[in-house]
């Protein structure tokens, strides 16, 4: 023997447990359910066929007997009871050839003619075609006849029956055929359920494989849709939506951590240098300038961190619970007012163009901050155009908020770069600002299920933040 043998009982136990596990599994239950259903459908059909065939046989059988009986009745009408008796007698003599049972009895039940010794006890007259077991004269055992009885006006009773020998044969044949059909249905049902389970497992496995790929780090893996819109397809589609979201968040996370690490390193290094120098300086010397430099750097670090976190949360869709009704006309005028002093100082005029009732739902603080970033940007990079326009308008079910300047603008090929986090069109990063301004605007737009675009204002730059109007904003799914 190879290895320790399992006791027989344990093997049986294992087998039954395996069977149980199969029945508990979705595939197992599916297979069993399918078999039961298909057999449950086959059985009534087979039974119907059986009874239908039986009915046809009997109908077929009664036709010659009825003809014979009508002959006898005719003879009775012509020759009275004597004629009938003679006819019955005659018939009974030939009865062995066509397997007929025939009997004529008088009012007292005494046999007048026929091939049965007595009137069967439980047989009333008249009675329409009924199967009945009768013993013929000279016969060894009772046989099944299809019998009809009539009571004549004279009180005599006549019995006529045909032997149902082929009915039993046909029954047997049909039953065999039906059994055969049933036995054939079993494997077909089994095959069907196996096919269904296989197909189901294949579909689920395709989805599971996507999950596995994603789990293994291939975030771009998606379930293929067949476009049918059935529940499985919808499952695939919602899985894909889920994965899209995860991919965005992970990419977001990666960019954020990379960029943060990169952008925080330089100010922190400068802080480190200042502290090191302060320690190296002679005791008692005035360190105020160093401390001020350090404070400035720390403030810069904090602003980057703050902006990055805010963007990351907005892009992840956190904060939709804070949405409230926003009067955008008031907001644009507020921003104009807030930046007016700075603009005046820079020789720029700010103009607001906006319908009075421009409103939507959103995060007041974030939308204001995004617009403020745009105005700030326009003042920083577009001041030589001497004019900034804040424009609010309605386009279909969208609201467009534009901040435009009349300066040099940004060339088409560099616009997407400008929107990217930490993407500044200033490689040396000498200008103040963390490079998060436009990325925040984009994140705020996407938090509101809107868009952010940079356009040519010929000349100058037009930054367009597009938000859904209040109806669309309310009807869009909220988490």
């Amino acid at each position: 023997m190879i290895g320790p043998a399992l006791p027989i009982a344990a093997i049986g136990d294992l087998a039954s447990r395996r069977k149980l596990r199969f029945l508990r599994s979705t595939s197992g239950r599916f297979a069993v359910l399918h078999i039961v259903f298909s057999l449950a459908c086959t059985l009534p059909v087979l039974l119907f066929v059986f009874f239908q065939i039986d009915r046809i046989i009997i109908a077929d059988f009664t036709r010659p007997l009825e003809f014979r009986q009508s002959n006898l009745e005719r003879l009775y009408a012509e020759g009275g009871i004597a004629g009938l008796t003679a006819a019955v007698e005659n018939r009974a003599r030939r009865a062995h050839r066509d397997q007929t049972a025939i009997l004529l009895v008088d009012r007292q039940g005494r046999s007048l003619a026929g091939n049965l010794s007595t009137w069967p006890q439980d047989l009333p007259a008249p009675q329409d075609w009924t199967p009945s077991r009768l013993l013929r004269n000279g016969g060894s055992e009772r046989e099944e006849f299809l019998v009809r009885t009539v009571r004549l006006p004279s009180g005599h009773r006549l019995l006529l029956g045909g032997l149902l020998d082929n009915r039993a044969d046909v029954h047997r044949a049909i039953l065999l055929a039906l059994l055969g059909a049933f036995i054939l249905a079993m494997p077909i049902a089994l095959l069907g359920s196996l096919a269904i389970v296989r197909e189901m497992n294949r579909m689920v496995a395709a989805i599971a494989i996507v999950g596995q790929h994603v789990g293994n780090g291939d975030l771009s893996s998606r379930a293929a849709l067949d476009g049918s819109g059935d529940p499985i397809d919808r499952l695939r589609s919602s899985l894909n939506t889920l994965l899209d979201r995860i991919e965005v968040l992970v990419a977001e996370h990666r960019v954020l951590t990379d960029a943060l690490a990169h952008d925080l390193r330089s100010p922190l290094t400068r802080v480190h240098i200042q502290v090191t120098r302060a320690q190296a300086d002679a005791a008692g010397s005035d360190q105020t300038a160093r401390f001020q430099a350090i404070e400035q750097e720390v403030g810069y670090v904090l602003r980057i961190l703050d902006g990055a976190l805010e963007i990351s949360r907005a892009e992840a869709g956190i904060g939709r619970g804070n949405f409230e009704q926003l009067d955008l006309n008031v907001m644009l005028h507020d921003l104009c007012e807030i930046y007016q002093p700075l603009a005046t100082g820079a020789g720029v005029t700010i103009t607001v163009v906006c319908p009075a009732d421009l409103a939507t739902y959103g995060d007041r603080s974030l939308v204001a901050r995004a617009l403020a970033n745009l105005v700030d940007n326009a003042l920083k990079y577009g001041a030589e155009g001497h004019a900034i326009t804040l424009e609010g308008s309605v386009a279909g079910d969208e609201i467009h908020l534009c901040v435009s300047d009349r300066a040099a603008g940004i060339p088409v090929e560099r616009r997407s770069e400008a929107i990217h986090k930490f993407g500044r069109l200033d490689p040396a990063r000498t200008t103040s600002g963390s490079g998060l301004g436009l990325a925040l605007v984009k994140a705020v737009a996407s938090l509101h299920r809107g868009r952010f675009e940079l356009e040519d204002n010929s000349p100058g730059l037009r930054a367009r933040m597009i938000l859904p109007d209040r109806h669309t904003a309310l009807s869009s799914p909220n988490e």
Partner: protein
Amino acid sequence: MTRTILVVEDDAETAAYLRTGLEQGGYRVEVASDGRQGLDMARHLNVDGIVLDRMLPEMDGLSVLTALRQDGRDTPVIILSAIGSTDERVRGLRAGSDDYLVKPFAMLELLARLEVLQRRRLAQQVVSTQLTCLDLTLDLIASRAERAGQVLQLQPRAIQLLEFLMRNQGQVVTRSMIFQKVWNYDFDPGTNVIDVYVSNLRKEIDRESLPPLLHTIRGAGYRLGSRGEEDFATGAATS
């Protein structure tokens, strides 16, 4: 009468910094180092204000705040937290805090905000529409400001700014407080904006030959009132 502030803060360093700063600002200070203890002390000590961290052991700050408000206590609470995103600040204010300050913070900012809350608590019942600060008067119903009998030419926003300064006269108000209360936004617009508005207001209020009322407090903000009151000269220390 010395007012008592309860500081609920689990970081020992920050708690000590808060204690020193608040004591220098003239408060008595009690410190709780976790949320449960903080809630206990807030219930049993009669404190005039609470400085509450959010991420605390035992019980988080928002739960402490919610429990206090459910008790029916209206003790002024300032949340002081490293959790600073817009939506989280809204959550804090909705949970019942009176103000929300993000770490790291300037001690002067905290003191100024605490003072405003204290004052608001005392003056809660009085809704005055006539404000006075020495020879400066503001009639809110008529939107009319006068200094030494002369009418001042002020835009609506300048009147709102003046109202805020007059309601907190003698107190230092910071730029971010002004921006939050007068403009009702909470992003950082760059300090220049407030400075420009304040200096325009100053031009109207402190005309030549009049003693100045609107003072700039270096490293902190502004104060409306006569010169010579206690000055915040501690500088803008941060934690």
